């Protein structure tokens, strides 16, 4: 399955959003995720099925003014 993760093309065999985060070593409560511009809450990541062509945003805290 071909995905776009934070603007980068990625080919993966994982099928859920939680599995994708695990594969990328992004586990924990310090991230927010969106698929095709819609927020996917933490609690829904395990059941959220990814589809070919999905655009995923993984955001984390950073410095801000």
């Amino acid at each position, binding site marked *: 399955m071909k995905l776009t993760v934070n603007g980068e093309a990625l080919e993966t065999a994982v099928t859920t959003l939680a599995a994708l985060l695990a594969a990328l070593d992004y586990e924990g409560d310090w*991230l927010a995720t969106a698929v095709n511009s819609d927020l996917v809450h933490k609690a829904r990541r395990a059941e959220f099925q990814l589809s070919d062509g999905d655009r995923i945003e993984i955001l984390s805290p950073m410095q801000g003014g």
Partner: protein
Amino acid sequence: MFELLGTTLSSRLLLGTAQYPSPAVLADAVKASGTSVVTVSLRREMAGGRAGEKFWSLIRALGTRILPNTAGCHSVKEAVKTANMAREVFGTNWIKLEVIGNHDTLQPDVFGLVEAARILCDDGFTVFPYTTDDLVVAERLLAAGCNVLMPWCAPIGSALGPVNLPALRSMRGHFPGVPLIVDAGLGRPSHAATVMELGFDAVLLNTAVAKAADPVGMARAFGKAVDAGREAFSSGMLEPREVAVPSTPTFGRAVFS
């Protein structure tokens, strides 16, 4: 102590967390300033390093309240989505709402700001809108559900200080019961003291501290200036006079002739 939207804060200074020379200096500056609210942002997590996780651990250890921002958003849609993702990560309904309208001045798009504020307020957010000193926009933001306003006093990062004091004074006068926080454009502690003397409830700044030669010392200086300005406002300042008035009593002077 300072009561802001039902929350008791120990300082009237809100501090940004960007542009410090190192995480250690950031932490020391936050402590030296006395602030109890820091602003943070959200960005794409880049592969490897878990930089976001490390930063978040540092911020949580400071024990301050968190005010996430929507910095860099140029549309209502971007700002609303970013706010929702910030709520997910930071676990707070507070959001510093920025909808930028001009690349050069980083001036807020006030039309988009009002629209985004309405959407977010309806969705349970406590919106801190980064706005201008325009009174009509301020009224629209309040009508949209905002209970606090954050006017700029000069462009973000400019360090110009309050470039339009009459406008700020007018804003304070028009909205006596609304918490007003000057956000953006402060360069020196005296700028912060000046707007606090006008009766503003607090100031939010970042660059003036982070880019100082000694950010920790400057953070401390800003903390003192904010306190001094507020205490001066509360103590009733003398109005300027155009004539000299002797401060030493004139009666009972000796006569030497």
